[in-house]
């Protein structure tokens, strides 16, 4: 058996990417449709 003195189990923190106020898909599609009509 090799004893290294450093054996360990380690879990790592994670990070978060949060993006507020994302436009709901329905509104986005509606706007795109309106823009198409306007254009």
């Amino acid at each position, binding site marked *: 058996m090799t004893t290294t003195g*450093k*054996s*360990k*189990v*380690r*879990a*790592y*923190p*994670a*990070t*978060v*990417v*949060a*993006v*507020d*106020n*994302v436009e*709901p*898909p329905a509104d986005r599609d509606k706007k795109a449709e309106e823009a198409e009509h306007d254009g």
Partner: protein
Amino acid sequence: MASGVHREFLLELFSAGHDVDGTADVIRCALFDNDRAPTVDDTATQAAYNGAGGSYLAATAEVTDATIWPATGIAVTADVSVSNVTNGIVMYDLTADTTNSPLTGTLANVYYAMLYNDTHASDRAMSWHDLSGPQGVTSGTFAVVWGTNGAFRLDA
């Protein structure tokens, strides 16, 4: 301890209690507040999704949103292609960051992401990961981004 691996999970690995390196067992990522900090020595009852006396109570500690982060969490997939690293290290990593994007919703007071084995009879909690809370999102998208070291490592 800000992040850790539950001892009960490691113990059960010796008895073939988990098949978590691919798609055999369903692994989920659930979010929790800081009502109670998890510990590596949580008992078998505590180290489980919705385990009594533990940190992962569904009714009081879990943070959910019907759209972007439903109760019981989001299913994830282990990345077996990078699970074995050199120098005596075994890494448990996931194939992708955990998110339901582009769906949107609201979350608040998120402190921990917890991985658990949903196939296990007790929904064994595997590990928890500090998210530097409180984290949240308002009518937006939310992603747990796993680091380059994976979720956890066993270093021989």
